[in-house]
Structures are given as structure tokens and as C-alpha cells.
């Protein structure tokens, strides 16, 4: 959990390396067997030139970062709004980062709004968007 919840606070990043095995495991777990993810011969013939990771796999890394920062509040009150900007490929190292942009206190709830981004090892943006989570003031103060 974050030690302090305030505007400008940087969330602890999550770093993961993508492999074809991980993509295949995600396909098995999620049931998404789109050949663009798992069929190297097919993917090589497409404009993408090779297999790409499932967008939801990369988004899971951003979600892990949010859980790491906000605990179960994320799992029960979280909100994502993101765009998939570029594909992640086997061999890429993905870093999910985030920053608290605003904290709005309304009645007995604090809404924490974050900007989030997942980039590859070349700094190319894979996912970009926002995430929000609601916290009770007690939980927010407990983190302060």
C-alpha cells in the first residue's frame, strides 16, 4: 500500500518481461485463442509481423500496480479507462507506471484519480489512460 496518498505521488511500478510462453499461458487461462497472440506463422503474415500479447495481459500489470498501491479498495471500487496504443511483443519488458493526479474529497469518500501508462523497454507507450479508486477518509489517513 502507498505510504502517502497525495497529488503527485508516484505509484510503485510493476515490471514484467513478456514471453511467448506467458502469452500462451494467458490464452489458456482467459480462453482467448486469437491467432494473432498464439500462432506465430499466422501472425508473421499480418501487418503486425509477429505475435503480440493480449491487451488484457498488459492491463493486468497496471491492475497489479493499482492493487499494490490501494489494496482491496482497487478490487472493489476501481475504474479503468485506457487505450491500447501499441502492441507488446515477446521479448519486451513492460513497465507499468502511475501517478496520482487529483484527490477529491466528497462527503465521506475520497476519489483518487491516477494517470497510468505501460511502456516497453524502448519507452514506447503500450497502454495509456486513467484509473480511479475510492477510499474512505480513515483508509486514506491510515496511509498518510
Amino acid at each position, binding site marked *: 500500500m502507498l505510504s502517502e496518498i497525495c497529488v503527485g505521488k508516484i505509484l510503485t511500478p510493476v515490471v514484467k518481461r513478456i514471453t511467448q510462453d506467458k502469452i500462451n499461458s494467458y490464452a489458456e487461462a482467459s480462453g482467448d485463442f*486469437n491467432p*494473432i497472440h498464439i500462432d506465430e506463422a499466422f501472425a508473421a503474415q499480418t501487418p503486425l509481423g509477429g505475435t503480440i500479447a493480449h*491487451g488484457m*495481459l498488459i492491463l493486468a500489470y497496471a491492475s497489479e500496480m493499482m492493487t499494490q498501491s490501494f489494496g482491496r479498495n*482497487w478490487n472493489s*471500487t*476501481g475504474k479503468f479507462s485506457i487505450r491500447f496504443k501499441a502492441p507488446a511483443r515477446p521479448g519486451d519488458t513492460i513497465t507499468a507506471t502511475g501517478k496520482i493526479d487529483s484527490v477529491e474529497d466528497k462527503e465521506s469518500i475520497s476519489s483518487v484519480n491516477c494517470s497510468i501508462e505501460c511502456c516497453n523497454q524502448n519507452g514506447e507507450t503500450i497502454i495509456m489512460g486513467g484509473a480511479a479508486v475510492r477510499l474512505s477518509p480513515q483508509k486514506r489517513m491510515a496511509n498518510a
Partner: protein
Amino acid sequence: MATISYDELTTGYEFPVTTHEMSSSFISSYVKAVGSPDDEYAPPLAIAACAMNAMTGAVSLPPGTIHASQEFEFFKLVPIGTIINCHARVIRKLARSTMHMLELELSVFNKNGEGIQSGKATLILPVQRANAQ
């Protein structure tokens, strides 16, 4: 198994509701695949993956379809063992000369009918050469 073709989809179409158990074996394989820590609650994106399957399992989308954007909102913690019902509905279908776009609304409920998650997904589909000409 696909029950409808992409061409048959229209705005407002509701996919058949799918039911999933957030079983410990499913969660364990999901957590292993994404490399996240274990918990006694289902990771919200494991539930989201099931919600996406309510659509992808029911329609034959052309190979090369990609996920362009995603919105999700989570409403409650989901303990391991919970049975969830996933609903998906087409809210927009666009056809342009170079690409097709599909927007879907996703909703997930527990067996008591309580909302667990909602979301919106945008998919970009390749235009088959035959269709483009």
C-alpha cells in the same frame, strides 16, 4: 463455440449470457499467467477476462482483430468460488473502407443479481480483402 457471425451483429445485439465459476483452479491459472500475487478474492481483471469471453466465445471475429480501448468499473470484492454471469451487448458497429470497429458493453453480476463489474470494450477488426473490394 461461435453462435453468430460478425456480419450478423447489429447495434443492440445481446450475446448469450455466460456463467463462470471463479474457481480456485481458474484463479490459480490466471494468477500464474499474469504473474500476480495470490489472494482470497478474484483479481478484477480475471473477471474482466471472463466478461470479454462472453463476447469472443460467441462470435467468429476475423483473425487479426485487436483490442483498441477498454473501460472497467469494479463494484465489489469477489471471493474465490463465486459464480458470475457475464452479459455483453453491441453498442456500436462501424464499417469503414479500411477497418471495422465494434463497441461492446460488458456487465457482470453474481448469482444474487448484484453488479460486480461493468465496462466497455472497443475492438478493431481487419477488413477482409474480399469485403474491401
